[in-house]
């Protein structure tokens, strides 16, 4: 089946994005990326710790198979996000960017005003911008209008594993969006990823649920199946829900 995901000028066969934080080892990350078949991999940028220079994360990623999607995590406002974006580009990450501005650490919820401001600046500067947002349909449209290439609404707070608590708003975003919708954050189990795909999300991003699993590579594979199953269900057309029974066997009189 030819069912490609198109974002900006690129097409992808796989609809599961993988985040690279919290993995127990570089090997475990590499195995998980391979097991997932993921083609879009997020990374972050941090000031180097001069006492501990060993972070070989980049060696786990095969740039011929996977697109690097650096994030601006750690940014608390538009200015900090723009700086991180430019650093990522100079570090050789290319011009794709997950724009992420989280001013408070307790819930790590994204700041909509600073995100829109930064998106405008970064789109003009030639970045392919995929903003991490709360599931706000109006904000999603505003970001589409300023030239973002996808929107990434959250299911629940980052790393919380609570699944899609924002489902009704995500449905509205999907209904109204002309750019891909990638459900990001909070997907704790493969069934959460399936649900996102069943309601018509174009892709999902998963990090914590895979990275902290007992067997990350196997969990990556489980999420990969779930995303494929959910996508197939969506494009096949799900049956309608009814309150009352509708017999699936012929009635007795017939």
């Amino acid at each position: 089946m030819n069912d490609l995901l198109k974002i900006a000028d690129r097409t992808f066969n796989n609809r599961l994005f993988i985040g690279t934080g919290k993995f127990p080892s570089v090997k475990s990350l590499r195995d998980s990326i391979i097991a997932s078949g993921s083609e879009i991999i997020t990374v972050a940028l941090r000031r180097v710790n001069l006492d501990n220079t060993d972070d070989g994360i980049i060696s786990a990623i095969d740039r011929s198979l996977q697109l690097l999607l650096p994030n601006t995590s750690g940014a608390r406002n538009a200015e900090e996000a723009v700086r991180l974006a430019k650093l990522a580009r100079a570090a050789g990450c290319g011009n794709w960017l997950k724009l992420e501005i989280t001013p408070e650490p307790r819930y790590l919820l994204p700041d909509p005003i600073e995100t829109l401001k930064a998106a405008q600046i970064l789109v003009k500067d030639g970045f392919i911008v995929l903003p991490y947002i709360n599931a706000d349909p109006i904000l999603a449209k505003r970001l589409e209008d300023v030239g973002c290439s996808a929107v990434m609404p959250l299911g629940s707070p980052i790393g919380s594993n609570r699944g899609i608590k924002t489902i009704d708003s995500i449905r509205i975003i999907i209904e109204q969006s002309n750019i891909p919708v990638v459900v990001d954050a909070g997907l704790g189990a493969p069934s959460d990823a399936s649900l996102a795909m069943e309601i018509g999300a174009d892709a999902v991003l998963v990090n914590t649920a895979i990275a902290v699993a007992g067997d990350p590579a196997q969990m990556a594979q489980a999420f990969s199946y779930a995303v494929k199953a959910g996508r197939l269900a969506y494009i096949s057309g799900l049956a309608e829900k009814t309150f009352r029974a509708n017999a699936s066997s012929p009635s007795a009189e017939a």
Partner: protein
Amino acid sequence: MKIFVNGNEHELEGSSITVEDVIKTVNMPSMGLVAELDGEIISNKDFSKSLIKDNSKLELIRIVGGG
């Protein structure tokens, strides 16, 4: 000369010292690395061309895991 690398003071001998020389001094692999020299972003390919001044502030930033 005296420089600051990620906020830590370093004394360096000689002249015409580049960002690349400093990275070697602090024993840092340059893969996935980017620098900011006195607020200006320096990409990996320009490390060997960028000269450090006395009292320069050099920030070294690396690609790490993240979601």
